[in-house]
């Protein structure tokens, strides 16, 4: 144990004496610090902005004057997706998905105003976030500093005497690994600070720590492979070339190939396309604006029988409101069916991408990081579903007022002059059917459950590489 520690300490001492190592370390630390601060600033600005917009939208809705209830159904409402606290570590899909949805009767709109559309376009890597830095850049620093841990000794011919003096291959291996692992832990400090900030913003501390732990395991994977490659290579050039090759494949090539593979393997017709089929289905249901639509004949007959009256005018409830409510319910179940199917296929596309985590730990950590942070596709879907629930509730609430608070006679005569139009209005007190909306990511245990698969990948990667390293070190050659 002390031998292992002594070897690690020797490595640290060397790095501290190397100008290149210090400069590289400082540059990466600077990048981490700068992106952390900038991203934390940006996301907390976004958070307060969207919370504010949500409040304004609710106030405006409630402040609407007395109206015909169906007018409010079309007036509609806006909901905004508030980024979760951990988005300051990993904003995930926040920038590429719309942040707000307009909710109205009879329609499920798409989310609008993705940041990516309005901001400057600078090609492939235009945004650096702390997650990106830890996933792609920190491993490069580890490679730059660590590729020589073994091969340096081999080139300097100090490996043979070390082994001959009785230092075991194992303690050498674990010592070098400890040296790199220590470096990784030092590099994780800014992440831990960010995690602390998210806890203050209301995130469960266990979630933040899980994210940090995930990145810890991920960086250890890099440490493990760096030590293995360094132990096997005959020159520093070869070690560095091999490690850069691995980085290129893992970080740049496999993730994008995974996207190509997912889009070829799982086809997701766009919403526009499925909408055509959906509207054909919906036409069968009848137009809820038109109570005379033959589709509602049965509903009318049933109601007349139920209240034992001859005509809809005699009904104690507003037939037009009932038609609106019934057709909204039918319509919504069709729309939800299509939406669920679409989200289901999108999720399997994303899972297809994540499966490539078995080929590249970069995919595994980025998936884990988004899942845990609540900035993944599923969270966006959750936003769409919650928005739909809000939509359905307020529309049906308004339809209920339409049924109970507005007489059928006043309703059908609403276009007969100004006075008739005034009679066909109900009090703005009825607008209180609108629920307050505050988007929060899924509960911690749900996010953790999603992360099992990428976490398993990371663990297997680490275990396999450690086993490989331990096996190699037993037969270490000078």
């Amino acid at each position, binding site marked *: 144990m002390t031998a292992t520690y002594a070897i690690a300490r020797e490595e640290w001492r060397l790095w501290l004496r190397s100008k290149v190592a210090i400069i590289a370390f400082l540059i990466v630390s600077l990048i981490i610090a700068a992106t952390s601060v900038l991203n934390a600033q940006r996301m907390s600005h976004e958070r307060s902005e969207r919370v504010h917009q949500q409040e304004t939208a609710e106030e405006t809705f409630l402040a609407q004057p007395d109206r015909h209830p169906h007018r409010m159904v079309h007036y509609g409402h806006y909901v905004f997706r508030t980024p979760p606290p951990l988005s300051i570590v990993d904003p995930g899909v926040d920038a590429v998905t719309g942040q707000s949805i307009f909710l109205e009767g009879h329609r499920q709109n798409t989310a609008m105003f993705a940041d990516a559309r309005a901001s400057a376009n600078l090609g492939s890597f235009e945004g650096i976030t702390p997650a990106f830095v830890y996933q792609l850049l920190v491993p490069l620093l580890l490679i730059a500093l660590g590729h020589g841990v073994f091969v340096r000794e081999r080139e300097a011919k100090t490996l043979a005497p070390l082994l001959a003096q009785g230092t075991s291959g194992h303690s050498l291996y674990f010592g070098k690994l400890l040296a790199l692992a220590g470096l990784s832990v030092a590099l994780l400090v800014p992440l831990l600070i960010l995690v602390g900030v998210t806890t203050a913003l209301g995130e469960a501390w266990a979630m933040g720590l899980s994210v940090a732990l995930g990145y810890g395991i991920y960086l250890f994977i890099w440490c493990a492979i760096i030590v293995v490659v360094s132990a096997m290579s005959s020159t520093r050039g070869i070690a560095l070339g091999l490690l850069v090759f691995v980085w290129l494949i893992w970080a740049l090539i496999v993730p994008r190939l995974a996207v190509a593979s997912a889009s070829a393997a799982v086809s997701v017709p766009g919403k526009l396309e499925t909408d055509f089929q959906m509207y054909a289905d919906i036409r069968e249901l009848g137009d809820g604006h038109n109570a005379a639509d033959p589709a509602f004949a049965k509903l009318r007959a049933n109601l007349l029988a139920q209240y034992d009256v001859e005509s809809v005018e005699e009904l104690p409830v507003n037939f037009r409101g009932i038609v609106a409510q019934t057709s909204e319910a039918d319509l919504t179940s069709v729309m939800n069916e299509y939406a669920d199917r679409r989200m289901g296929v999108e999720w399997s596309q994303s899972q297809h991408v994540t499966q490539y985590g078995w080929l590249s730990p970069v995919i595994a950590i980025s998936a884990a990081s988004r899942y845990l942070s609540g900035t993944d596709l599923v969270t966006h879907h959750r936003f769409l579903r919650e928005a739909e629930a809000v939509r359905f509730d307020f529309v049906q609430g308004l339809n209920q007022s339409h049924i109970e608070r507005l007489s059928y006679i006043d309703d059908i005569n609403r276009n*007969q002059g100004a006075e008739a139009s005034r009679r066909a209005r109900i009090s703005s007190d009825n607008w209180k059917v609108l629920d307050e909306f505050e988007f929060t990511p899924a509960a911690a245990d749900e996010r953790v459950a999603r992360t099992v698969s990428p976490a398993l990948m990371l663990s297997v990667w680490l275990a396999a590489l450690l086993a490989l390293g331990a096996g190699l070190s037993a037969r270490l050659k000078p």
Partner: protein
Amino acid sequence: MTALTRELWFLSKDRSAQVWLLIAFAAASFAVLFGLQEVSSQRDTIERLKAADTIEREVAIEEYQDWGSAAYYTFHLTYDAPSEFTFAALGQRDTAPWKHRIRMLALEGQIYETDAPNPDFALIGRFDYAFVVAILSPLFLILLLHDLRASEKANGRYELLDATDEGVWRIRAGLRLAAVSIVLLLPLWVAALLSGASGVQVFVASAAVLLHLTFWWAVIAWINAHGWTAPINLTTLFGVWLALAIVAPAGIKIAVDSAVAVPDGGDIVLTQRETVNDAWDLPVSATMDPFLERHPEWADYATMEGTFEWKWYYAFQQVGDQTVEPLSIAYRDGRMRRDGLSAMLSWLSPPAKIERVFQSLSQTDTSAAATYENRVRTFHAELRDYYYPLMFKDAPFTDEAVSTRPSFSN
């Protein structure tokens, strides 16, 4: 000539160089392949949408036999077909819309809807040719060239080689530069031929690739000239790559986004909605007066018989658009100003620059997205020009009149 053949012979013996060239070739080939596939799938999608849209419009005509309802219930498909060169850079097509259905209602409430693909795709990014050229090709070149002098030095042949033939480094590097250029350009040329891209596009694209590679060759030569060891060369060059390909674009983006403010998109749709909805409760003149400012030709037809007429309904839809026009224009201008500034500042990052060049050749850049948006706006204006006379003059609903309704064409 003998020096060249000797160097060719060396290259044919250099396993690691061949591996990198092979990877570069495979990357470029896969990239154009994926690009061609994506483009053909987008074309198919557009064809399917067009067919479905025609059917749907016929259904709507059957069902609604008055101009107001027909206009309300009829959606019109608009689309932005991929160009012959789109395979090389899918660009903004993952986040900006390239298909859209609109109707006669206020356009500002509809135009920002986006039928985007899986957001994970846009987040991770596409493996397109522009990515290979901008991000990967400098790395391939660095890996091929960083140890040219250093490895000979390590082998103890450097002094000898350097003394006997000064041109050897230039030939050796030039040969590898040429090899990388060929393995990157060949797939592009084949794909361009297959998809029918124009000679000018291919020429500009090839020139851009060569310029980009030459730039990196110069950077590598400069670093190599310091006479450091191969690992230090490689580390330094990766640092330069990191600075130019990743840190600079991110910095430019932050700078541009904060320098040019763009109104919040949400404000546009909110304001539009308020105007349109308030109109119901306002006197007719509150709608018709601003409407007639734009359309004085309907002044004689702007009176209303009952409390509801479709012409009034569509007039307040248009007034909704008119009210947010300044915001909407500021939003569009802001995006274009950001793009202009990015174009200028991207000279600081050759990888970002070449990616922008490719997106512009492929018509997948910000201005192509803006052009499409403008075409949708023009088409929407045509729809209004078509419907207004019919509604204001209370024209009979005839098949003949329906047959002249504009439809979007690419």
